[in-house]
């Protein structure tokens, strides 16, 4: 076999096997992506998520540290005992600091709150209770609600 044909075969073999792994990997992830007990967002929470997306709250806020950084992370904001639900309800329409002044209805705020509550159930961020182990690894500590 000429060398170039052999090289092509070799390349195709490597790419082929990577693709097979990739296909299996995706199937597993799509099916079983969350390792935690399955969390089903309620209809109200999904509506809250839609409001969240339509207003691009993620430009300034994060869940699990993912998002823009002009505002604070809100993963567990609803269960923060120093704040409380009433404070959160009020601040959304208050237009504090860089946050625009919104005019959400009572119902829309309920939907946002339902979304916050659903996310709060899925875990911690910042996760102050991690267990560091050897070789630079970190074990994420789970919430009891999802174990």
């Amino acid at each position: 076999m000429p060398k170039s044909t052999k090289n092509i075969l070799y390349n195709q073999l490597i790419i082929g096997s990577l693709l097979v792994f990739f296909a299996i990997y995706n199937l597993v992830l799509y099916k079983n992506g969350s390792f935690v007990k399955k969390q089903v967002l309620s209809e109200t929470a999904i509506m809250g998520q839609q409001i969240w997306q339509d207003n691009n709250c993620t430009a300034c806020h994060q869940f699990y540290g993912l998002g823009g950084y002009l505002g604070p992370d809100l993963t567990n904001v609803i269960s923060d005992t120093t704040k409380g639900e009433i404070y959160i309800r009020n601040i959304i329409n208050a237009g504090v600091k860089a946050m625009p002044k919104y005019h959400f209805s009572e119902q829309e705020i309920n939907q946002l709150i339902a979304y916050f509550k659903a996310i709060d159930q899925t875990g911690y961020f910042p996760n102050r209770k991690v267990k560091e182990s050897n070789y630079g690894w970190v074990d994420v500590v789970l919430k009891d609600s999802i174990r």
Partner: protein
Amino acid sequence: MNKYAIYFLVLALISLFISGLVGVLSSFQYIYPNLLKESLHFAKLRPIHVVSSVSWIILAATGIIYFFLSTHTKTKLFSGKLAGFHFYLFLAIGLSIYLSILFGKIGGREFFVFAPLLIIPILLGWLLFAFNYFKSVRQKIVNWPVYYWMWGTGIAFMVFHLSEAHLWLIPSFRENYIRDLVIQWKSVGSFVGSWNQLVYGISIYLMTKIKGDKKLAHGKLVFFFYFLGLANLMFGWAHHTYIIPTQSWVRIVAYVISMTEWVILFHIIYSFIKSLPREKRKANSMAFRFLVAADIWVFLNLILALLMSIPAINYFTHGTHITVAHTMGTMIGINSMILLAAIGYIISVSQPLFQIRKRVIFAYKLLNASLFLFLITFVVAGIARSKWMYANQGASFGEMQTSLHAVYVGMVITGLLVFVGLLILIVEAIQTLVTFVNKS
């Protein structure tokens, strides 16, 4: 030469301009929170900035690949008309995206900030590009140089990951919050991996052309680099999601894979720089300079990225501006330097008499120096935020932000300088490219 290749480049440079301008404008909101708060607040400016930055990279890479395909002696672009259609389609999509954001129809997810329906024409554009590309290079299936593999991979995976990013539109998918979040960031990470294939392929093409040495794109090492890049694209995204409660094996796979890729890119560019004869450096001086800059940025980002891929460090850097330093470092430092090198190369081959003006060299130096300082401000802000998250429970978010005022002022000033450097390069490049199209 296909004129649409140059049109793509001009459109890319305009996107870069918008990205820089809006970036500067939105950074001002860090020091003046009330600036434009009711009209052009951060939730509108940030998506314009992000989408313009991504457009710059993707449009420039597309234009450069079209240019190389249509001028390369061995290939012929399959259809110039199709490239034209691709161009006008992306132009229309681009305008629709800006209108969609300005009129408040926002997608609300990272990178996918526009009305979700627009993904359909975007996918169509990529499929057309794929068709044109594979038709063009297929005759040459025997012994493809590595950049053909990389470009083909980039285009194919782009289609896959753009689709994957929209799985949430299926209601049952969206219901499972953690899965949705993880797949969202998986697709975003692999989307970046896909354009990296396009851009790194361009860097290898450039090096073979400048040096006039075909072997550079055929050796075992470059192919190893390609396979590693591919594995990274597929499995290496998970450092975005270490802290999310997912299966540990996903995170372990990502951890192992993400430690490898760039070491090799650094090595390839470095050995090219070292081995290039002086007269060839001179003949391609602007392209060469940008490649040198890219190599230095690869090195600096490598350190940061390797550190951030270690879960115990990622734990502290995740959710802070250190992530932004990494993103901007790779997008401006690596991707943009390589693309600017390619544009410099295109200008020098199409107009051999072209003289590089002093202000271009000045802009090159300004860009690189200010970028370095700019990124430092993000790292400092990130460290402060991390300390606030994990060590200082007392202070409120607002107090933490106020204490960082001086750092944010530094961020605005150095960001402005980065923009000035880019602006000079953009104006010069557009001027030269436009006269070039008019002449031919």
